[in-house]
């Protein structure tokens, strides 16, 4: 399935979108829509949530039940939606700053609970919307508006973070290997439990421009060169692994889901049901 029915899932009157020419956010958004279309999900049964940032603009273009919330706290809104309306499929998109800096705390606790939400991180390694400040995933030595001498802060590895925090589905994809991303997102959305997909993507305007990747495809080429399959990664030496990100599915496990557990162990007891 390609983009033959993509506009059935969009608020076409809002297009063209606000993102810069060549911004990877649009590539991921199309991939999410194809994943939803492949799963044949009912539009009215989806709640699509975001925080603030360029990534946060996504729900505005999509024809689902949509909610554009506050910076870093979108997972708390999603948690509320899922608790109140467990039948809804809840998909939450986040920026890397949104998910891991201001929202880092909410992120790890959502992972820990294993609530049935799909969290998709548009990881462009920078604060796009606010002028290119460095984020928790800015690579070593990269120039951001707040790291004029090159970033010296070590990065978060989203896959390791989400796995350690307890998410039952953890994967990484990227905006270059799009067909693979479609498949990963499809599995993540279909998974019951908290799913995290770290999607490596571009920001030609704020990251690329400062780091000799001004053309959109130069930033995408960088992503292509950074990524290797999990299988290949496992055969690489420690030296070769430097600066590389394995892509694929790392964790896919059946575990108790939070809304079900809470219903059984708290709500039913409080209501005097067995």
């Amino acid at each position, binding site marked *: 399935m*390609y*983009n*033959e029915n*993509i*506009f059935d899932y*969009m608020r076409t009157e809002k*297009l*063209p*979108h606000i*993102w*810069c*020419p*060549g*911004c*990877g*956010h*649009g*590539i991921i958004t*199309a*991939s999410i829509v194809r994943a939803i279309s492949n799963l044949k999900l009912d539009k009215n049964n989806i709640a699509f949530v975001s925080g603030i940032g360029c990534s946060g603009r996504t729900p505005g273009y999509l024809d689902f039940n949509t909610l554009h919330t506050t910076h870093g706290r979108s997972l708390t809104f999603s948690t509320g939606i899922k608790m109140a309306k467990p039948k809804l499929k809840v998909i939450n998109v986040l920026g890397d700053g949104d998910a891991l800096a201001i929202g880092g705390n909410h992120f790890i606790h959502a992972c820990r609970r294993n609530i049935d939400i799909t969290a998709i991180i548009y990881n462009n390694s920078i604060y796009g919307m606010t002028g290119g400040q460095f984020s928790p995933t800015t690579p070593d030595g990269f120039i951001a508006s707040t790291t004029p001498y090159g970033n010296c802060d070590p990065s978060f590895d989203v896959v390791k973070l989400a796995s350690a925090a307890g998410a039952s589905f953890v994967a990484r994809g990227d*905006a*270059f290997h*799009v*067909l693979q991303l479609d498949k990963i997102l499809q599995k993540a959305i279909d998974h019951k439990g908290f799913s995290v997909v770290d999607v490596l993507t571009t920001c030609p305007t704020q990251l690329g421009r400062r780091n000799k990747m001004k*053309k*959109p*495809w130069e930033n*995408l080429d960088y992503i292509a060169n950074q990524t290797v399959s999990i299988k290949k990664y496992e055969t690489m030496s420690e030296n070769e692994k430097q600066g590389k990100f394995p892509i694929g599915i790392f964790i896919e496990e059946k575990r108790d889901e939070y809304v079900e557990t809470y219903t059984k162990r708290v709500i039913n007891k409080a209501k005097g049901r067995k």
Partner: protein
Amino acid sequence: MTKKGFVHKIHKNLCKGCGICVHYCPKNVLEMNHDNKVVAKRPADCIGCHLCELRCPDFAIQVEACDFPDANNKKVTKKG
């Protein structure tokens, strides 16, 4: 006689001229026009890989399979 081919549906109002599709097309089918919108210059060379469609950040290009008259078939060429 017909030959399988591809047509490129380009939504000009959505294309932002980023050049991603042109850069990654393996067959050099696409070009940037003077108005900074993409055009399919050599559609007959298209192999239908859909890479342009999948990597377009603006949902601006769709590739569709279709049947073309076969240029190698004399009858069709004469008629046309």
